């Protein structure tokens, strides 16, 4: 057995123990960098390199070499090729080359009923042409554009899959994948892709019945989307949560929570655990989170680590809370002290792996030396 394979197995064991509710040998670490970071870190031009996924392997390798992680630390979600073919309005490049999600309206107010009656048909017929300008055409042309975009998408994902596999082998990363599926909370997909942040905030007050019915209607679609072909107990479906912190408690309780809980439970019934990015501050909803199936993975952005450990620590798997903003502005010692502080609170008894409070998306998002120092500190010192 090669050294790297042995290392892979050792790291896989860390995460298997974590997931099986055992205390691992040490605190597992998942560094998370977006491909945009990796491109800039390798000294390449983001506006060019993200078009050529064939060339990304040596670029990703540099990040893998320099930043400690027990799982593959680089991943790519949004690539320009297929969005360009589609004439995307919901994923658009900023002047620095970083693709972002601006405010969009994919579903008109008067189309709620069509969505509620048949979400999939409504998305194909009414929403996609609004989100993707090149699909706003006759059906023949539309089919061609869609086929081209899907070909580009599967080519890119094929390239990335190959690169991920090579890097996992080369660097001896663990064989668990918390991104093996993807979906959103039903209320979030209606907010982010269909109505937009502004419109949904108004809909919640003017047409709450429609919002509730739409979230309900989107639920089976999200469960289907989030279930990969081969579910595994050691992999997870990634669900980045968005809108709950911006809602009043009573709106959350009625319009957000029921369909989201059903989604997580539906994925569980299909053999998938959920990996939640708990964006912003969910502390006023912590008792709801406690209701989610055992072993749900939750990476927190903000909030109270002590409270989370106390309320969720025995049932769920916790990560996050490490502020990327501190990596940007703090001294090396402050950064290391913060890691120590979080580990002291979150690690005892297991059920925790080290992760930043969000993905590091670009080179200027964090100080590179601080980031390396923190990951090395945790790797060397957080043993059980």
């Amino acid at each position, binding site marked *: 057995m090669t050294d790297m394979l042995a290392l892979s197995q050792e790291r896989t064991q860390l995460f298997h123990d974590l997931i099986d509710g055992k205390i691992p040998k040490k605190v597992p670490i998942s560094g998370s960098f977006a491909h945009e970071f990796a491109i800039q870190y390798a000294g390449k031009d983001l506006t060019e390199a993200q078009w050529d996924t064939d060339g990304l392997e040596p670029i990703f390798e540099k990040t893998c070499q320099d930043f400690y992680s027990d799982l593959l630390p680089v991943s790519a979600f949004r690539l320009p090729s297929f969005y360009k073919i589609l004439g995307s309005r919901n994923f658009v490049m900023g002047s620095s080359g970083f693709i*972002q999600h*601006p405010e969009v309206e994919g579903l008109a107010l008067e189309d709620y009923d069509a969505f509620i009656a048949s979400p999939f048909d409504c998305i194909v017929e009414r929403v996609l042409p609004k989100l993707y300008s090149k699909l706003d055409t006759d059906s023949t042309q539309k089919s061609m554009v869609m086929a081209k975009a899907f070909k580009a998408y599967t080519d890119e994902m094929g390239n990335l899959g190959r690169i991920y596999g090579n890097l996992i082998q080369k660097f001896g990363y663990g064989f668990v994948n918390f991104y093996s599926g993807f979906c959103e909370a039903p209320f979030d997909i209606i907010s982010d892709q269909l109505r937009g942040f502004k419109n949904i905030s108004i809909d919640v007050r003017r047409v709450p019945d429609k919002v509730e019915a739409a979230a309900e209607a989107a639920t089976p679609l999200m469960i289907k989307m989030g279930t990969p072909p081969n579910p595994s107990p050691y992999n997870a479906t990634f669900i980045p949560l968005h809108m709950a*912190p911006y809602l009043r408690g009573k*709106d959350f309780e009625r319009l957000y929570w029921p369909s989201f809980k059903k989604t997580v439970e539906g994925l569980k019934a299909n053999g998938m655990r959920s990996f939640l990015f708990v964006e912003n501050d969910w502390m006023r909803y912590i008792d709801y989170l406690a209701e989610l199936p055992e072993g749900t993975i939750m990476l927190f952005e903000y909030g109270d680590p002590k409270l989370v450990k106390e309320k969720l620590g025995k049932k769920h798997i916790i990560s996050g809370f490490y502020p990327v*903003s501190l990596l940007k502005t703090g001294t090396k010692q402050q950064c290391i002290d913060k890691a120590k502080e979080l580990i002291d609170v979150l690690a005892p008894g297991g059920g925790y792996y080290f992760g930043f409070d969000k993905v590091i*998306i670009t080179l200027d*998002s964090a100080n590179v030396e601080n980031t390396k120092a923190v990951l090395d500190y945790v790797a060397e010192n957080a043993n059980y």
Partner: protein
Amino acid sequence: MDLNALTQAVGDLDETAVVEILEAFVAGNPTGEEAYGVVNACQQGMAIVGELFEKSEYFVGDLIFAGELLNQAIDILKPVISGDKSKKIGAIILGTVKGDLHDIGKNIFASMVDAAGFEVYDLGIDVPPGDFVEKVKEIKPQIVGMSGVLTLALDSMKATVDALTEAGLRNDIKIIIGGNPVTEDACTQIGADAFTTNAAAGVKQCQGWVS
């Protein structure tokens, strides 16, 4: 009419009541003077919304709805407001900084400072430092507000402050930064005068600067 009831209805975000009160008011052929009293009452209602937001009784979604409600109120009042005679307490230039396309927070802040009586110049999203400099030269505002959601926005904010300093404009203005990544440390490093992740607190800061 009962101005306090109107202020309260706006504060409660009670759309039906606000629309009813304003439509009845407009139907009574009020004078321009009376209309400004009513606009003022709506603005005071927005101040209540800001207070409830600071107390965590309202959340971001409520601020967005409040902005919409205020726009709707102004639309109803337009026929009886002749020309723009409202007194402005100051001018503020706003923008989401270079590299960042997010504008929800900026738009919320814009509608709240507008309601608080500022003349607002919104430069939009992904705004290069040079555009801030040009607009400051043209308008000579008291305040510049920079917004961003991505951590990369911090560097752009710094570049913008540096550009304003280089152009010799920094001492004439107050600079406030807002959005998800801003912290006290970031504020110091960027060289801004204030930072906030809370639009209502930011509005108070701006009011403090011009009072």
